[in-house]
């Protein structure tokens, strides 16, 4: 890693008067005014202090939270909509069961009045189906 070799060193001394590269007359004088003319000197140079970087992780957390709430609400809606028909169908099954087996259900349990005041059902000329119609 040497500095200039002798031949380059000799040439450097000759380069002091080197006129290989030339300039148009008064170029340096005009350059100043050319540059100033190109600039709108009234423009304010950029001196604004750098804005601190926005903490993007806050936006990411907010977005994540928002999505979690949305997903939770959707899940809740889905589960409640599947549970309601199940409840309905359970009621229907129970109702069918009661209707099918009503002949051995002791209807006396349904009465809340004293037994003496009850009509004797056997005396009534009423079928089981009619009786169920009355009950339901």
């Amino acid at each position, binding site marked *: 890693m040497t500095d200039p070799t002798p031949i*380059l060193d000799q040439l450097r001394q000759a380069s002091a008067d080197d006129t290989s590269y030339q300039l148009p007359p008064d170029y*340096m004088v005009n350059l*100043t005014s050319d540059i100033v003319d190109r600039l709108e000197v009234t423009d304010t*140079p950029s001196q604004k202090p750098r804005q601190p970087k926005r903490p993007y992780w806050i936006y990411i957390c907010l977005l994540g939270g928002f999505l979690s709430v949305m997903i939770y609400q959707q899940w809740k809606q889905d589960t409640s909509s599947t549970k309601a028909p199940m409840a309905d169908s359970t009621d229907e099954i129970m109702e069918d069961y009661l209707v099918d087996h009503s002949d051995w259900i002791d209807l006396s349990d349904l009465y809340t009045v004293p037994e003496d005041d009850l009509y004797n059902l056997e005396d009534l000329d009423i079928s089981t189906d009619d009786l169920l119609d009355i009950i339901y």
Partner: protein
Amino acid sequence: MIQRPATREAGFRALLSAHQEQVYWQVRRMVHDHSTADDVVQEVFIKVYRHIGKFAKKSSLATWIYRIAHNEALSYLRTHKRHPLEDISDHHERMELMCEDPYFDADGALATLHVAIQGLPVRQKQVFCMRYFDEMPYAQIAEVLELSVGSLKASYHHASKKIESSLRESIT
């Protein structure tokens, strides 16, 4: 001065008169022809004016301006390739192309020197010109080009060897 509205223009004119000549010659040796150098130098000082508020004072103002100048010259050479002098291997062909610039007139050993410099890769050309013509210390070149002193010395060594070889060929 530049940062105060009242003295902005006077301050900028003072900055120009202090640095424009050295910036011009640094750029001129990089891009070779006068019209390109003129365009690049104007762009450099427009950038200096617009971004002076961002000058962090980590280096001297001159170093900061030279860094802008070298980056601008480099990007100009890479994007325009108006004079792909480094791609021409033939010395005479390169010399002919260089002489198309009306503001270039060289002969003898100095012509060989300039032709050989234009044949160097861009990075070596930058390092060689700053060291050889401007006699800048390696530490300042390292700041301008944002390179290590070791790699600068290596670049300068390779550039010197190539130019020396061209000079020897032209003598024999």
